[in-house]
C-alpha cells in the first residue's frame, strides 16, 4: 500500500511527459483527457489511500533510490506518508482535479492548451513530491519544481511582456527565500549529518538545547524559504503580480496549494522551530503584521483578482500566526479550509472576468446576481467562509481555532490575537465589498455566454466543501469534534491546550460579532450609502492612505529604488566588463611603445650614424667616469 504513495506523484508526471512530448498530436480532447485524467486518477488513489490509512494510521516510508552517496551525504528519493502529508495530498489532488476539470472548459480554444495542461500536471507532480518527500533535499526539489511551474503559468500568455515581468518577479523573489532555505540545508547537513527529515528532527532535538545558536540559525533560514514561497513580509510583493496568469492557475497555485508550502515546511520541521523560541516569535509577528497589512491592501484594490491575491497573503498570515504560537494543527486546518474557499472564490471570479470580456475592475461590474446565479451563490459561499461567518462556514471553525490558540498563548499571543481580530473585521469588510459591488446594484457590463458542466461541477463541489469542510474540527461548545487535531496528533505531539470551554465560547462569539460587523460595514458603505466612501476619500490624508494601501504599502516602490534600480544600473553600466579595460590598456601600451620605437627606424643613414656616435660617446664617458 505504501508503494501507492510513491506512485501518486508519478501519474501527473506521466501526464506532463505525454503532453510535453506529444501535446500537439493529441488534439484538444486528448489533451484534456490526459491532463484531467492523470490528476483524477491520482485523486482517486489518494482517496483510497486515505481509507486505508484511517484503518491503520501508521506512517509508511518508501524509498525509490538513493539520489547520490558522497562521503556520508546520501539523500534519498524517498516518500513518507503520515497524517500531515496525507492531508496535503488530499488537498492537492482533490482541489487539483477540480481545477483541472474547470480548466478543460475555461481554457478551451487557447493556442497553448497542451502547454497549459503540461505545466499544470507538472505542478501537481512537483507539489506532491514536496508534500510526500521524506528527505529535505527531495522536498527542495519539489519546492523548486512548483516555483518553476508557477513561473511558467504566470507567464503563460507570453506575448505580453508584462506577464513575463510578473513571472520573473515571482521566480526571483521566491528564489531569494529559496536560497536561504538552501543555506539552511547546508547548515543542517553539516552539523547533523543527514537530510532525512525525521532523522534531522530527532538529531536536532537530541543535540541542540532550546535556543542553541545553530538551531536558531537553521530555523531562521528555513523561515526565509517559507516566507518567500508563502508571500509573507517582506517577500510578499510577487503574489499580487502573479495574478497575470490564467485564473485557474491563481486558484490552484497562488491560493490553494503552492503558496501554502511555506506553512507545510514549518509544520513539517516544527521540532526545529520549537528549539528556536526567538524565531517562533518572529514567525508569529510576521504572520500578524502580514495579515493586517495585506487586509488593508485588499480593501483598497479595484481589480477583483488582486483583492483575492491580497486576501490570500492575509489568510496565509493567519496560518503563519498559528505556527508562531505553536498551534501546528490549527495552521494546517486553516490551510485546508482556505484551500476550499479561496479556490472557490478564484474559480467564481474567473467566470465573472471571462463573461465580462476580461474585465477586472469591480466597479465596472455589478448586478450579476440574476445574470450568473450559480456563480453568485458560489462566490457568496466562498466569501462567507473567508469572512468566517459563524457556525455554517468552514472558515469560521479554522480561523476561530487559530484565534483561540493565540489568545491562550500568553501576553505575546494576546497581541497576535488582537491583530487577528482586526484582520477578521477587515476580511468581512473587503470581501463583502467585492460581493456587494460585483453582484448587487445595477448591471454595468452585461455578461455573455453561460457556463458548462466542467465549470459548474467544481463550483458546486467546492461550495459544499467551503461550507462543511470545517466540521472535522469543532470547538467544545459546538459539538466538540477534535477529529483533525486527533488525526494530526502523532505528527504534532505535545500536551493538549488547556481546556476552557467558557472562555473559548466567549472568544468565539466575540470573533463572530467582529466578522459580522465587518460585513455590516461593507453593507453600509457599498449598499446603503454608496457616497460615504467617496466622502471619506475626499480628505487628502484618507486618499493618500488609500493610495499607500492600494500600492501594497509601497514595498514595491522601496525595493525598486533600493535594490532593483541600483543593481540593474550597475550591471548595465559595467556590462562592457571593466576588467577588460585593464587588458585593453595593456594592449594600447604595447601598441604605443611599438609606434614610438618604430619611429626610430627611419632608414636614414645620418640618423643611424648620429645615434651610433652618441652611443659611443656615452659608453666611453661612463667607462671613463666610473
Amino acid at each position, binding site marked *: 500500500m505504501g508503494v501507492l504513495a510513491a506512485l501518486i506523484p508519478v501519474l501527473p508526471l506521466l501526464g506532463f511527459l505525454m503532453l*510535453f512530448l506529444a501535446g500537439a498530436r493529441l488534439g484538444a480532447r486528448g489533451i484534456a483527457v490526459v491532463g484531467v485524467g492523470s490528476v483524477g486518477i491520482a485523486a482517486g488513489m489518494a482517496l483510497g489511500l486515505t481509507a486505508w490509512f484511517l484503518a491503520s494510521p501508521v506512517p509508511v516510508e518508501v524509498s525509490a*533510490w*538513493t*539520489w*547520490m*552517496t*558522497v*562521503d556520508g*551525504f546520501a539523500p534519498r*528519493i524517498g516518500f513518507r506518508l503520515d497524517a500531515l502529508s496525507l492531508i496535503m495530498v488530499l488537498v492537492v489532488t482533490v482541489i487539483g482535479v477540480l481545477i483541472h476539470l474547470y480548466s478543460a472548459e475555461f481554457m478551451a480554444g487557447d493556442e497553448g492548451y497542451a502547454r497549459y495542461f503540461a505545466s499544470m500536471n507538472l505542478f501537481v507532480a512537483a507539489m506532491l513530491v514536496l508534500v510526500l518527500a521524506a528527505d529535505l*533535499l527531495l522536498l*527542495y*526539489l519539489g519546492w*523548486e*519544481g512548483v516555483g*518553476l511551474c508557477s*513561473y511558467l503559468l504566470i*507567464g503563460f500568455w*507570453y*506575448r*505580453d*511582456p508584462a506577464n*513575463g515581468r510578473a*513571472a*520573473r518577479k515571482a*521566480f*526571483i523573489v521566491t*528564489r*531569494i527565500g*529559496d*536560497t536561504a532555505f*538552501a*543555506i539552511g540545508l*547546508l*547548515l543542517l*547537513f*553539516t552539523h547533523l549529518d543527514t537530510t532525512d527529515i525525521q532523522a534531522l528532527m530527532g538529531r536536532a532535538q537530541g543535540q541542540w538545547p532550546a535556543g542553541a545558536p545553530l538551531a536558531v540559525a537553521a530555523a531562521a533560514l528555513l523561515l526565509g524559504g517559507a516566507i518567500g514561497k508563502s508571500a509573507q513580509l517582506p517577500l510578499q510583493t510577487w503574489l499580487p503580480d502573479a495574478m497575470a496568469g490564467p485564473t485557474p492557475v491563481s486558484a490552484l497555485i497562488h491560493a490553494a496549494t503552492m503558496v501554502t508550502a511555506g506553512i507545510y515546511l514549518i509544520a513539517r520541521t516544527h521540532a526545529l522551530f520549537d528549539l528556536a523560541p526567538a524565531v517562533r516569535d518572529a514567525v508569529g509577528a510576521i504572520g500578524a503584521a502580514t495579515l493586517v497589512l495585506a487586509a488593508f491592501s485588499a480593501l483598497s484594490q479595484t481589480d477583483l483578482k488582486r483583492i483575492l491575491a491580497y486576501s490570500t497573503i492575509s489568510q496565509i498570515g493567519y496560518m503563519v500566526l498559528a505556527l508562531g504560537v505553536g498551534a501546528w494543527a490549527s495552521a494546517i486546518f486553516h490551510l485546508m479550509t482556505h484551500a476550499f474557499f479561496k479556490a472557490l472564490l478564484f474559480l467564481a471570479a474567473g467566470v465573472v472576468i471571462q463573461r465580462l470580456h476580461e474585465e477586472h475592475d469591480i466597479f465596472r461590474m455589478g448586478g450579476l446576481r440574476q445574470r450568473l446565479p450559480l456563480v453568485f451563490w458560489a462566490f457568496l459561499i466562498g466569501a462567507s467562509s473567508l469572512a468566517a461567518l459563524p457556525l455554517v462556514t468552514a472558515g469560521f471553525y479554522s480561523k476561530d481555532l487559530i484565534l483561540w490558540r493565540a489568545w491562550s498563548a500568553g501576553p505575546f499571543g494576546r497581541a497576535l490575537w488582537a491583530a487577528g481580530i482586526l484582520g477578521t473585521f477587515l476580511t468581512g469588510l473587503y470581501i463583502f465589498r467585492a460581493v456587494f459591488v460585483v453582484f448587487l446594484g445595477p448591471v454595468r457590463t452585461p455578461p455573455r455566454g453561460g457556463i458548462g458542466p466542467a465549470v459548474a461541477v467544481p463550483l458546486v463541489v467546492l461550495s459544499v466543501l467551503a461550507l462543511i469542510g470545517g466540521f472535522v474540527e469543532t470547538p467544545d461548545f459546538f459539538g466538540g469534534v477534535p477529529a483533525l487535531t486527533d488525526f494530526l496528533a502523532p505528527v504534532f505531539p505535545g500536551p493538549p491546550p488547556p481546556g476552557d470551554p467558557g472562555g473559548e465560547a466567549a472568544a468565539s462569539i466575540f470573533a463572530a460579532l467582529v466578522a459580522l460587523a465587518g460585513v455590516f460595514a461593507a453593507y453600509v458603505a457599498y449598499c446603503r450609502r454608496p457616497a460615504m466612501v467617496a466622502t471619506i476619500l475626499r480628505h487628502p490624508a484618507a486618499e493618500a492612505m488609500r493610495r499607500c494601501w492600494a500600492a501594497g504599502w509601497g514595498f514595491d516602490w522601496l525595493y525598486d529604488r533600493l535594490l532593483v534600480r541600483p*543593481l*540593474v544600473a*550597475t*550591471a*548595465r553600466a*559595467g*556590462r562592457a*566588463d571593466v*576588467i*577588460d579595460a*585593464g*587588458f585593453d590598456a595593456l594592449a594600447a601600451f604595447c601598441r604605443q611603445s611599438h609606434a614610438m620605437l618604430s619611429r626610430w627606424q627611419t632608414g636614414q643613414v645620418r640618423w643611424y650614424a648620429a645615434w651610433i656616435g652618441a652611443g659611443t660617446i656615452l659608453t666611453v664617458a661612463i667607462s671613463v667616469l666610473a
Partner: protein
Amino acid sequence: MMLPWLILVPLMGGALAWAVQRAGGTAVRGVALAALAVDLALVLAVWSKALPAAGGWLADFARPWIPSLGIGLHLGLDGLSLVLILLTLVLGILAVGASWTEIGDRVGFFHFNLLWTLGGIVGVFLALDLVLFFLLWELMLVPMFFLIALWGHEDRMRAAIKFFLFTQGGGLLMLVAILALGVLAAPSAGLRRFDYFALIGHAPGGVTGWLLMLGFFLAFAVKLPAVPLHTWLPDAHTEAPTAGSVVLAGLLLKTGAYGLLRFAVPLFPAQSHAFAPVAMALGVAGILYGGMLAFAQDDAKRLVAYTSVSHLGFVLLGIYADNRLALQGVVMQMLAHGLSTGGLFMVVGAVQERLHTRDLDRLGGLWASMPRLSAAGLVLALASLGLPGLGNFVGEFLVLLGSWAAAPAFAAIGALGLVVSVVYALTLVQRTFHGPARAAAADFSFGHLAVMAVMVAGLVWFGLYPQPVFDLAGPSLGAVAGTAAP
C-alpha cells in the same frame, strides 16, 4: 597499449576529413563522426578491459621519448580522465551534428581543426608527463585559433588573437614552471624528470615553490577562466562558430579545471592549501561577477558566455574547498555545464543561423514559430539556473556543501549565485523566446532535436541519478583530496 590511439584516432580522422574535402561536406562530416565514434568505442573498450587498480588508474602507457632529457611518453587513464574524455567525445559528436548546416566553407579544413582540437583535449586528459602535457596543451589551442579566426563571426580576428595571447601567456608561465620543476626536482625524480608520479611529493618549498605553483595556477586560471583573467572568454565564445563555442565552453574550460585538479593541487599541496582562501574568493567573485555581467548583455551568445564565468566560479570554489563533497560537485558541475552551456550555444547558434542576429533587442517571441527550439532552450536555461532534478543543481549544491564545511562564509556568498543565475537565465528566456513575436523562422529539424534530446537526457540523468559518475571519479578524487590535505 590502446591509450595513444585515443589521441591518434581523432588526429588521423581529422587528416582524412581534410583529404576527402573534394568529395563534399557529407563525406567530411561522415568521416569526422566515424572517427569520433571509433574513438568513443575505443574508450569504452579500454574501460571494459580495465582492472580496478590501486589509486583508481584504469590503464597506463609509458615509453621513453627523449631519455637524455628525462621526457617520456606517459599516458594514464583514471576515472576522472575517463568521464572527461567521454564528455569530450560525446560533445564532439554532438557538435559535428549541430554544425551540419552552419559550415559551408572549407568544410574539410574545418573538421580537421575541430578533430585536432578534440584530439589535443583527449591528450590533455591523458598525459602524465609534464612536457607531453604541455605539447598536447598547445595542440588543442592552435586549431581552435583557426576555428575562431576562419569561421567566426564579425569580429573574429580580434577575438582569435585575444584568445591566443591569453592562453599562450598562461601556457608560457606553465612551461617555465614545468622546466623549473623538472630541473629542481631532478635528484629525486631521476631519469623520469618530468613524470607526474616522480614529481609528486617533490615540489620545492619556499618562494620557489610558491612561484612554481602560481605558474601552474595562472595557466589553468586563464583557461578556467577565473576572474580577473576571464576577459578572453566572452570575445572568443561570441565570435566562434557554434561548434567552436560548444568545444570552448564544454571542453576547453574543463582542461583548466582538470589541470588544477590533476597538477596544480597535487604537485603543490602545501602551497595550494595556503592559497585556498584566495582561490575560493576568486571563485565566489567569478560566480557573482560573471552572473551580473551575463544579465546585462544584449548579445545572446555573450550572455551565455558570461554564464560560463559564473558556473566555472563554482568549479574553482569547489577545487580549493578540497574535500570529497566539493570535488565530486566539481566533477558533476563540469559535466553538467558541458551539456547545458554547450546546448545553449547550439540553440543560440541555431537562432543566429536562421535569423542572422544575436541581438536580444531584435529577438523575442520565438516560441510562436519555433516551439521545439524554444522548449529546448528553456530546459537548458533551467539547467543553467540550477533547477533541482537537472545535473547542474547536483554539482552546485555539492560544491556549496563542501565549501560550507571548509569556509561557510564563501559558501553563503557563493549561494547568492543561485539568485543571480535565475535573473540571467530568465532574462535570456524572456528576450529570446517570450514577448511579442519580432522574428520567425523554421523550427528545429529532427536531427537537431535528437542532439537536444541527448543533452537533456544527460542532464536529467545527472540530476536524478549521478551515482555512476561519482563512483567512477571517486578514486581519483580521493588521491587529490589526499595529497592536498594539510
